[in-house]
C-alpha cells in the first residue's frame, strides 16, 4: 500500500489552550517517512476550544477534567476529511447533547437514588474496555465452553477505526473466537504504519498481543431499548492487569431516561467477575458506536462497540470518594 497523508489538528483539555499537531506520513510498501509537513493547525484552535466549552456546559464539574476536544483535518491523496471529536475519558460525546439539560449546571443523580427498575447497561466505551480486557486476560487456548463471551457477541479484529486520523489498513477483518485470538496470518503493514499518527516510534500493541488490531464489536439479533430507565456505565478504567478472575474498575456513568439524561454524581468502584460477565449477554440495547479506551499504558485505543444490558448482580459497586 502507498499513502501520502497529512494530519493537522488542535486538541484542547481546558477550553483555553491547545496542543497543535501537524504531521505528514508517506508510505511506500513497508517503509514510512514522517516529516516535511508544511500545514499549520492554528486555524483549528478556536474550533477546538469552542467544542470543549460546549461540552463543558453539559458535563458536571468533576468530569470536565476528563474532557478532551479535537478538531482537525485528514488529507489523503484523493480526499480531505475534516473531523471533530470530543470525549470524556474515552466516552465519545456526540449528538446526544440534546438530552442533557442545558441549565446553569448540569443535573446529576446519585447512585443511591437510581430507580430500582433501571436496567444496567454498558455504554460503547465501557463495552470496548471490558471486551479488550477479557481478551487480554485469556491465558491460553480455550474450549468453546470456556469462551468468556456470549455466542451472539461478535468480536472482530479490524484495520478500521472510528478516529479519522487512524483509518487505514488494507486487510479484511477477522472474527475472534477460541481458535483465532488474533490475526496471526495477516501482515497488515499499512495498519501498523497508519494507526499511530502521534506515536510512530511505538507500534500499536507494542507489548504482548502484538498482532491485535482494532476491535469492532457487535451483537447478533439487532438491538432494542431495555426499559424506561437505564443506568449506563460510560467508561471503565481497569484497576488490575487483564485477568479472567474477579477484577476491579473505576467507572463513570449516567442515567438515561426516554426524554432526559443525568450524569452520575460520583465515580463508582466496581468489582466484576471478568470471566463470566459477558457470557450471558442476550441482546444489545444500542447499535455499535465509536468508542475509545484511555489505556494508561497504550494510550488511546479506538474501536466500535454496542451498548449491552447486564444483570445488576453481575457487578458489585462501591462509591469512590471525590
Amino acid at each position, binding site marked *: 500500500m502507498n499513502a501520502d497523508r497529512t494530519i493537522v489538528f488542535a486538541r484542547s483539555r481546558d477550553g483555553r489552550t491547545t496542543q*497543535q499537531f501537524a504531521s505528514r506520513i508517506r508510505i511506500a510498501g513497508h517503509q514510512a517517512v*514522517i*516529516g516535511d509537513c508544511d500545514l499549520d493547525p492554528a486555524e483549528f484552535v478556536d474550533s477546538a476550544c469552542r467544542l470543549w466549552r460546549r461540552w463543558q456546559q453539559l458535563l458536571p464539574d468533576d468530569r470536565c477534567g476528563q474532557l478532551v476536544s479535537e478538531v482537525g483535518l485528514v488529507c489523503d491523496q484523493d480526499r480531505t476529511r475534516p473531523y471533530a471529536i470530543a470525549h470524556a475519558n474515552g466516552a465519545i460525546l456526540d449528538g446526544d447533547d440534546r438530552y442533557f439539560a442545558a441549565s446553569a449546571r448540569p443535573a446529576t443523580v446519585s447512585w443511591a437514588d437510581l430507580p430500582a427498575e433501571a436496567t444496567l447497561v454498558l455504554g460503547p466505551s465501557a463495552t470496548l474496555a471490558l471486551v479488550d480486557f477479557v481478551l487480554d486476560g485469556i491465558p491460553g487456548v480455550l474450549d468453546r465452553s470456556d469462551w468468556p463471551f456470549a455466542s451472539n457477541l461478535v468480536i472482530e479484529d479490524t484495520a478500521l477505526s472510528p478516529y479519522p486520523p487512524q483509518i487505514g489498513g488494507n486487510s479484511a477483518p477477522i472474527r475472534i473466537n477460541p481458535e483465532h485470538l*488474533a490475526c496471526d496470518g495477516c501482515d497488515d503493514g499499512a495498519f501498523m504504519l497508519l494507526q499511530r499518527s502521534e506515536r510512530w516510534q511505538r507500534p500499536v500493541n507494542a507489548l*504482548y498481543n502484538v498482532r491485535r488490531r482494532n476491535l469492532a464489536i457487535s451483537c447478533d439479533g439487532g438491538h432494542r431499548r431495555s426499559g424506561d430507565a437505564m443506568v449506563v456505565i460510560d467508561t471503565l478504567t481497569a484497576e488490575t492487569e487483564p485477568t479472567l478472575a474477579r477484577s476491579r474498575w473505576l467507572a463513570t456513568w449516567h442515567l438515561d431516561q426516554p426524554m432526559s439524561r443525568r450524569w452520575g454524581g460520583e465515580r463508582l468502584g466496581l468489582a466484576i467477575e471478568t470471566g463470566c460477565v459477558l457470557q450471558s449477554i442476550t441482546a444489545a440495547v444500542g447499535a455499535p458506536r465509536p468508542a475509545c479506551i484511555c489505556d494508561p499504558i*497504550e494510550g488511546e485505543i479506538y474501536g466500535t462497540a454496542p451498548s449491552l444490558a447486564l444483570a445488576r448482580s453481575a457487578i458489585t459497586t462501591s462509591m469512590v470518594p471525590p
Partner: protein
Amino acid sequence: MPIRRSHEIGHALTIDLVAPGGQPAVRTTCFQAWREELPSGAVRTSTALPPRSWSAPEVPPPAGGEADRACRLLVEFAAGLGASAALRYSRLVSRRHVTDAEEMWQSREVNVFALTGRIGLANGRFISLGWSGFGDGFDRMIEGPMRRRVAWIARSAAAAAPMEAGAGPAVLDPQSTALVVHEAVGHFSEAAVDASVDLRHRLGCRLAADGFDVFDDPSLPGAARYQVDDEGTEAIGPTRVLADGVIIQQLHSRRSAAAAASLPTANARAAQITLPPIPRLSNLVMPAGTSSQDSLLEMMGSGLMVHHLSHGFSRGIEMEARIVLAERVEGGRLTGRFVSGGRVTERVDVLTRARSRGDCSELNPNALCGKHGQILYDVGTIAPALLLSSLRISA
C-alpha cells in the same frame, strides 16, 4: 519566548514474526519532528525540520538499523524456543535536542530495542515475552543463557500445576525482585504526572525493611543511559530514593520539582518528542546483600521460589504481578515441583517483609514500562534475589 523547544530525528525498525512457519514482516519509519511549549500553555508539534529561527543543531539522521541481521536473529530466536510464538522486534535510534529560555541546546541519543510478544506453551497456555533496553539486543537473541532461560521457563510453565491462593514465605529471583521493586518502590517514588497533584506526603513512608536502600541512576550501564533528560536537566549522579527502607526523595521533572519546592532529578522522560516529558524512573538499583541464593532457600526452609513474574502493575498503594513460574521449596531445597498462574497481590510496602538479599544483582532483561500512555523501552531495574517472610498470592 517559549518555555521549551525540542526536536528529534531518527528511525524505527519493526519486525513481526509468527512462528513456526511465518516470514518476518519488516517495517521501517524515518522521522523528524519538533515540539514547542509556549508560556500560554499551548503546545505546537510538527513533523518537519525545526524552523531556522530556532538555530537548532543540524545533524544528520543516525545510522540505519541492521534489518537483515535482526530478521535472521529473530527467526533463529523463535526456532530456539521450541514453541509457537508471535513476536515483535522493535528498534529505535534517534537523536533528541532540547533547549529552554535559559540554556543552550542539550542533545542525547536514543538507542533502544524491544523484543515482545507471546509464546504458546505445550499445555495450550501463553506466556508473554518482554525484553528491552539499550542497544540492539542482538546479544540476547543469539544462543546463550538468556535464550535458554526463556525456553526453560516455557517448558517448566507448561508442566506446572496451578498456583493456589494464600500467603507464605518466598524467595524472589533477581528478575522477580526487580519487578516488585519497580512497581512497589519505583512508581511510588515518582512525582505525579500532573504537577498540581502533591505527593509529598509519601516522603517518610516506610516501603522496605531497615537496611534497604534504593537508588535511581541514569548514568549506569543499565537499560536507560542518558546524561540529560528530556527537559535538558543534567544527570549529576544517583538519586537516593529509599534510605533504610524509608522514602527520602521523589523523582522529579522540572515542573513537578518546582511545585514540590524541590530540585529536578533528571527524571523527565518522554516516549517520543511529540509527548510531554513526565517524571519516570531511569535505572532503579537495589544493591546486593551478602547471602547466596542457596542460603536464602536454607533460611526460608519451606515456601516458594518465584522464578518469573510478568505484567507488573501498580496503582496507588497496591501492586500486582502475574506468576509465570514458581517452584515449591522444602527443607531449604528446590523440589522441581513447579506451579504457575495466580497473581502476586500486595501493597507497596511488601518489602518491609524482606529478610535478606542475595549477593548478586542482575539487570532485569525486561525494561518495558508504560505510564500515562507512554511506553518506554529503557526503564532499568538492577536487583538481587530476595527472601520475603510472606508473599500474598491470589488465584
